[in-house]
């Protein structure tokens, strides 16, 4: 029982930390990858709470569809959040 509590705590901390990271980060591609991590951990949470159908939908939508749509949006706009700064992270 104590193991479940420890694993739940680790997952909850990771969930909140990655969601905060998606808000704070200035590089928008990193923020998109962060939303992928949020979806992954959230799906494991739904699974642990005995709701596999919700976890199935969350996995299919979050890891494939959201990432594709946001990356295409970034391709058509700017990658950096602050458009006046000309930084060198456009390369990788």
């Amino acid at each position, binding site marked *: 029982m104590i*193991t479940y509590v*420890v*694993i739940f705590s*680790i*997952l909850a901390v*990771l969930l909140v*930390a*990655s969601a905060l*990271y998606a808000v704070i980060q200035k*590089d928008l*591609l*990193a923020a*998109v*990858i*962060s939303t*992928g*991590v949020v979806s*992954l951990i959230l*799906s*494991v949470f739904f*699974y*642990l709470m*005995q709701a*596999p159908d919700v*976890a*199935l939908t969350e*996995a*299919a939508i979050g*890891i*494939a569809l959201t*990432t*594709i749509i946001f*990356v*295409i949006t*970034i*391709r058509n706009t700017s990658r950096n959040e602050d458009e006046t700064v000309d930084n060198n*992270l456009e390369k*990788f």
Partner: protein
Amino acid sequence: METVFIIVLSLMALGLLLGFLRFVKGPTAADRAVALDTMSVIATAALVLLGLMFKRYIYIDVALIYAVLGFIGVIVIARFIEKAL
């Protein structure tokens, strides 16, 4: 033999934690994509093991979806970095 499951599950949770640390640290976006890929594979194995611990056959389908769809996001990000999307 519940102890084996607990030990393996703890190892997988530690793996998720280490992958998340690399995800926060990683200097380039490609490093973050590698961390996401690794975390998705670890989560697939952990979901199968949790399905065994809950003793429900239906629960394996979530891991199947992760194994089928988990690489599409990484490939899209790689094509974007390559500027070939």
